Every structure is written in C-alpha cells, then in structure tokens.
C-alpha cells in the first residue's frame, strides 16, 4: 500500500484525474537540441519520433517498411525516382496543413551544406526533390539507394515546418519543433525534462500500431535522471511509469517486483564491439586478430557482466538483421583459447619472459581507446584478462565521452571500443567499411576496393536478392579478416508499470517507445 505523505489532500484530489492521462518516462541523458538535422543523439530521436512523422515507418520486425506520412509510394525501374503519395488531412501541431512543399523543404534542408547536418549522407545522392502537386512528392536520386526507405524511417527524416524554422532560426529545436507527430512540443528544460502534450487531431499513425491516433496519453514528461539507482527505484515506486534505461544488474530484480513489468525485444540491433586498426603493425596480421577473437568468451561476459540480459555477439550485426549472410553462421569465431594459442605459435609469435608474445621485435601489446565509465571499463578489463591468457598485453586507455570522439578520429591507437545502432546490414556496412569513411567512422582503416565495389553494388541494387548477395559478400570478407571482436548485441529492455498496458519494444535507433501510440493505462 502506498503511504506517501501528501501535504495537501485537496490538491491531490484535483490532480488525480489528470494523472490518469499523464506519465513520466525517465532516461539517462538529454539531447543537445531537438532539430532532426543537427543532432545524432538517441536522446533526441526518442522525442523526435513522437513529435514528428516520417514518410515511411519501420515495423517492430525491423524489416517491414510501412506507410507513414506517405500512404503509398512507387519506385522507378532504374531505382532513381521515388514518388510518394501523401495522406490527406495531415496537420502540424499548430493546425496548419502539411503539404508536399513541407516534405520538399525538409529533405532540402537535411542535405543543404549550410545545415551542416552530420547525417546528410543518409539521404542518398539527391538530384532533386520536388512537389508534383500538394500531395505528391518526387524524390530523384543521382544513383539508386537500395536502402533509402530504411533511411527515411529515421528521425533525421521527419517532416518539419518551414515557417517555424525560418522564424526561430538557431532556436529551432531549442524553443520549439512543430511537427505532425502524435505529440506536440510542450516545454523543454535542458538536462531536466521535456514535456510533450497530445496532438489532439492526430489520426495518421503508422500501421505499426493498433492505435493510429490520437495518443492515449495527454502528456508525457521525459525526465532526465542521471543516477541509475534513482531511475530504477522510480519505476518500482510508481514515480515513473516507463524507462528503457535500467541497469542490467537490476533487471532480474525488477522482474520479481510486484507492479513492474519487463518487456524485452527478441531483436537486438545495438551492437558492442572492439575494432582493430588493421594497418597498425601490432594488429595487422589477420591471424593475430582471429586469435584475439577466439580468446574472448562473449557468453561468459554476457552472463557475468550483464547478468544474462544481453546476447553474446559473434557477428558484426544481429543475425536477425536484414541481409545478414546466413552462410557465415557456421564460420563465426567463438571462444577457443587453445586454438588461439596454437594459431599464434604457428604464426611465429613466441612468448617472452613476461608471457607477452613477440615477433620480429614487435610485442603483442596493442593500445585500445575506450570510453570512460562503468560499461567500457568492465568490458575492457574483461577482454584484457582474456587476451593475457594468449600472451597479449592489452593497454587500456579510457577517455571521457567529450574527448573520446576526437581521440577516436586519430591514428594513435591500435584498437577501439564502440557501440552503434543500425536498421540493416547495409546500414552498418556502408557506415563502417567504406574507404571514404576513413579515419572515422571507418576507424579500422579498412581500405579495400573490392569492399567498396560490393558496397556500391549493394547500395544501388534494384533487386533485393542482389543487394543481399553483395552485402553478404562484404560481411564474409570482414568477418574472415577478423576486423572486429564482436562482444554483444543489446536487446531493447523496457521496464514499465503494470498500470500500463504492455508496450512492445521497438529497436529503431535504440528508441524503445518509438511513437508512443501504445502507451495506455489499463482500464
């Protein structure tokens, strides 16, 4: 029984009916802004998906593209022209009708060099975007982009209001973001909370949800709670109704806590890995990289460090991801330290007096850059211990997140720790393995013309089978070369109050609640 003291019974009585329609979602960090073109933060995407809509949406299976603001679309035979037919009656939060001009403006601003969007490349090589009539948009590309629709499901591609962008200038996404989503901008206090309110006329939600609008919740407060224990107990005590930021150690306890439900997605599209800078002497030999892969026990790490709540990873993308090459399933490198030692012995890496291997004057003593903080500290210490068993002395250098991104753009290190969200194999491969993306995000310096050719083939493929084959080949090449040590795939876990109907976790960009249309109190 809840015995919370209330200092004004009358005030509580008035507040009670309102509380039935309002929830608080707690999360770890805020975003720097809510301009879809100027931020890559997950914290921004979480709110933007609710404030705005995209032309197309992604189903919870992470493969099926569904209508969003576009009720239908056609792709030309050469794959260069997408024609979107927009839904009628869509309105921005300020009541203005959304038209094809808004779509054109949104795409143009996204790719405009003046915008300096760090994610402009995701829009493809755009030749022209134009409105054929108020409800039809033509999106013309210089070359086909087989995964364009997947990119258009992302928060970067939500449709924005030109009038507001021009009126607010640099304050767009800071003092307001007028979207067409199921919720409207309420009030943002940076680093504290974002309050969003129901878009009353909303009725054009994607078929991902049974409820396509309006939202059940009248108001959602996204509350920033940096302290993980506070986040956890806030759900237990009902001070917050939902969070996806639960420490792994608390998940099993929450499962047994009355009043709390844990929702876990079967999919895991956020992968943690250690990458090798493949042209650095100490890790340039594929045998060394393969041996290091074999030395790491991902299953034990998943169990011991993450209490069995994550999926041990042996593949660079989830094996459930679109275009994963199933032929690789039997070739993945799994824990086998004896084989790792034998491979290094055979390759001529001999142990010195201190147990560290050497060859031709090179000691197996790679330097790894990781993010400071409990997560990567635990991972790097565990990997360090595993590698020590095969004669590798891993030197760990952690950096605060504000420094790490800059450091990771240098050539100073031999290995690095990283995690990332993706929607498909192609999304991940085009980001990390294109030679033009060196030194970042291709921090491996993976410079292989054949890979580039295959990525181009996959990216421009008109036939899904050809696309899958091209990306499948790239997956084979990089796995065989052991360019990474995959560690674990993180599934989406949501802790929610049982006063809410069970929510279905989504994996899009790590935003478990996606558009929030299924957030509803039990009747």
């Amino acid at each position, binding site marked *: 029984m809840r015995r919370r003291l209330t200092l004004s019974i009358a005030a509580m009585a008035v507040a009670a009916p309102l509380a039935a329609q309002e929830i608080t979602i707690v999360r770890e960090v805020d975003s720097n802004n809510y301009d879809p073109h100027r931020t890559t933060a997950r914290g921004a995407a979480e709110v933007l998906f609710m404030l705005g809509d995209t032309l197309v949406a992604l189903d919870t299976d992470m493969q099926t593209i569904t209508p969003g603001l576009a009720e239908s679309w056609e792709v030309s035979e050469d794959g260069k022209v997408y024609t979107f037919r927009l839904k009628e009656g869509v309105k921005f939060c300020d009541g203005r009708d959304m038209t094809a001009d808004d779509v054109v403006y949104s795409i143009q601003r996204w790719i405009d060099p003046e915008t300096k969007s760090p994610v402009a490349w995701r829009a493809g090589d755009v030749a022209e975007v134009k409105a054929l009539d108020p409800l039809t948009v033509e999106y013309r590309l210089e070359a086909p982009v087989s995964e364009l629709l997947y990119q258009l499901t992302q928060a970067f591609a939500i449709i924005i209001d030109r009038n507001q962008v021009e009126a607010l200038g640099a304050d767009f996404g800071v003092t307001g973001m007028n979207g067409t989503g199921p919720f409207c901008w309420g009030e943002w206090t940076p680093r504290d909370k974002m309050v969003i309110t129901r878009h009353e006329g909303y009725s054009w939600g994607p078929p991902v949800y049974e409820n396509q609008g309006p939202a059940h919740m009248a108001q959602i407060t996204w509350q920033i709670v940096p302290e993980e224990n506070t986040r956890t107990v806030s759900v237990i005590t009902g001070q917050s109704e939902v969070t996806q930021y639960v420490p792994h150690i608390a998940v099993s306890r929450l499962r047994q806590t009355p009043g709390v439900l844990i929702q876990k997605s079967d999919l895991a599209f956020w992968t943690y890995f250690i990458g090798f800078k493949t042209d650095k002497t100490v890790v340039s030999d594929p045998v060394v990289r393969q041996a290091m892969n074999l030395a790491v026990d991902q299953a034990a790490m998943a169990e011991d460090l993450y209490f069995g709540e994550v999926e041990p990873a042996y593949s660079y993308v989830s094996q459930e991801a679109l275009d994963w090459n199933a032929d690789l399933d039997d070739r993945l490198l799994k824990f086998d330290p004896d084989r790792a030692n034998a491979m290094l012995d055979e390759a001529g890496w001999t142990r010195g007096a201190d147990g560290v291997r050497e060859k031709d004057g090179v000691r197996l003593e790679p330097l790894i850059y990781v993010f400071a903080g409990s997560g990567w500290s635990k991972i790097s210490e565990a990997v360090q211990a595993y590698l020590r068993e095969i004669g590798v002395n891993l030197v760990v250098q952690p950096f605060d997140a504000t420094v790490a991104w800059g450091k990771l*753009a240098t050539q100073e290190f031999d290995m690095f720790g990283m995690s990332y969200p993706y929607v498909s194999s192609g999304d991940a491969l085009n980001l990390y393995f294109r030679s033009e993306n060196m030194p970042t995000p291709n921090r491996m310096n993976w410079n292989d013309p054949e890979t580039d050719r295959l990525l181009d083939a996959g990216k421009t493929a008109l036939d899904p089978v050809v696309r899958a084959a091209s990306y499948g080949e790239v997956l084979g090449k990089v796995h065989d070369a052991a360019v990474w040590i995959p560690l674990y795939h993180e599934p989406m876990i949501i802790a929610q109050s049982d006063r809410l109907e069970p929510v279905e976790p989504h994996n899009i960009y790590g935003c478990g609640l996606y558009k929030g249309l299924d957030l509803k109190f039990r009747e």
Partner: protein
Amino acid sequence: MIAQLANRIALSIPVLLGVLALGFALLQLVPGDPAIVLAGPTATEEVVQAIRVEMGLDKSVPHQFVLYLGRLLEGDLGRSLISNKTVASELGAAIGPTAELMVACLAWSIPLGILLGTVAASLRGGVIDRLVMAFSVAGVSLPIFFICLLMIQYLGVEWRLFPFLGRGGPLWTAEGLDHIVLPALSLGLIFVGPVARMTRSSVLEVLKLDHVRTARAKGLSETAVLVRHGLRNALIPVVTLVGLQAGYLLGGAVVTESVFSWPGVGRLAVGAILSSDFPLAQGAILTLAMAFIVINLIVDAAYAALDPRVRGA
C-alpha cells in the same frame, strides 16, 4: 556599518574576477572539444572546424577570456553551446530551485543544530550530550551521496513517504513541498552536525563568563540563563560557521541535485562541465561564487547586528 559593507562589496570584486579567471583557466584544462561534441561522431573535420570558428574556439585562450569579460560587462553571459539558450535564461531557471533547496535545508537544520547543541551543552557529559555528539560526527562523516541513497531507499522506496524524482513545482505548492523533503533532509543532515558542535562548545564557553554567574546569582531560572544570557552570546561563532558552511552546502547541493534530479545550479554546472559547455559552466561558476560572496556579506551584516563591538570597529 554602511561604510563597512561598502568596503566589503568593493573587496568582493577582485575576488569575483579571480574566480572568473581561475574558472576559465580550469575549464580550458578539462579535456574535450565542444565542437566535436556538437558535430557528432560521424561529422567530417571540415564540419567540426566550421563549428569551431562559429563558436570562437579557434581564438587563443586569453583572447577568449577578454572577449568573455567584455560581454560580461555588458550583461551578456553568452549562449549555451549545447542548447543555444541564453546562459542567463538557463541560470535563471536553475537559481530558483537551488535557492529553494538551500532555504528548505537551512530552515530545519540550523534550528535543530542550535537546539541540539544547546541541549548537549546544558547536559554536558550526560547520555544525551554523547548521543548528540555521536549524531553530529555521523552527519559530518557520512558522504552526502550515501545519505541521499539512504533517504531514497528508506523514506522513498521502503516506506514510500516522499517522492524523490525531480522538483514537483514551486515550494509554495503541495507537490513542491512534497518533492523537496528528501533532498532538503539529505542536504541538511551534513549541516546539523557542525552547527550542533559549534553551538555546544560556544554555549559552554559563554556559560563560564561572569555575566552568566551574575544572572544565576540574581535567581533567574536555568532555562532563562541558558537562552537569554548564554545562547544569544554564543551565537556569534555559530553565525560565522553558518556562513562558511553555506559554501560547503553549495558543494553538497551539486551531489544532492544530481541524485534527486533537482534542476538547480549545481546539477546545471555538472552537466555543463561534462558536456564541455564552457559559457554555461562559467556562468554556473560565477553564480555559485556570487552566492558564496553574498552569503558572507550577510554574515558580516549579521555580525554587526549581533555584536556591538563589530559595529564600532
């Protein structure tokens, strides 16, 4: 007295300048490039450099400091690099909650500390005296974050008496009062101990003085002697301590605000430093320094009110 205060205010200007210079220099030592933070992990070097120029980060540190001082004199604290909101508006929104927390904390901890110290002094050497001193030592010794977690665990989770998530509203509302209880209790606990100890020793000193003996000789009750002749004269060092401890309290508020998600200046400062938001961090440092100076000015004024000898000095 007015001349004395004016002198104090004049002296605080170089102090403030020193704090600003030190804060600016220290922030330069904090590793991190705000331009990279803003640009995101996949941005090209050209984009990062363009943002750096736009933010004036390509200029030398002394040049940046001089520009900052110039803007400060015009009342412009700049804009947050992260949110693009003016620093003044961000600080304006955070000062209220921190002030509320300080008031709520001091409102219960100072009277309780004085009461405990006085009781302990009057019962010197007894069980209550020892209990009060043990409580004081515990309050001083326990880390503030641990006190916060204990409060959440017992008063928030086990017994569900009070909420612990953020600020419910202004202090004069029921929700606001409900939400401030745990942060104010946690923060106040570190304050009660020193006040109680100082009050105890000060009262004991005063009780040995001649005027107290005279008061007793006149036949006044022990309570009247203690309160009217002992406590009032014993309060001067306590006021000094309150002034000094208030600075410590501001430090404690940084932790308390972080644990309870209290949207105050302390939490703002931590967030700004961690995200390399230099203008905001500098603004928060300036605010905290000014708060410290103002508290000390108030203490000086209180001295004068309590002790006629200071007024004449």
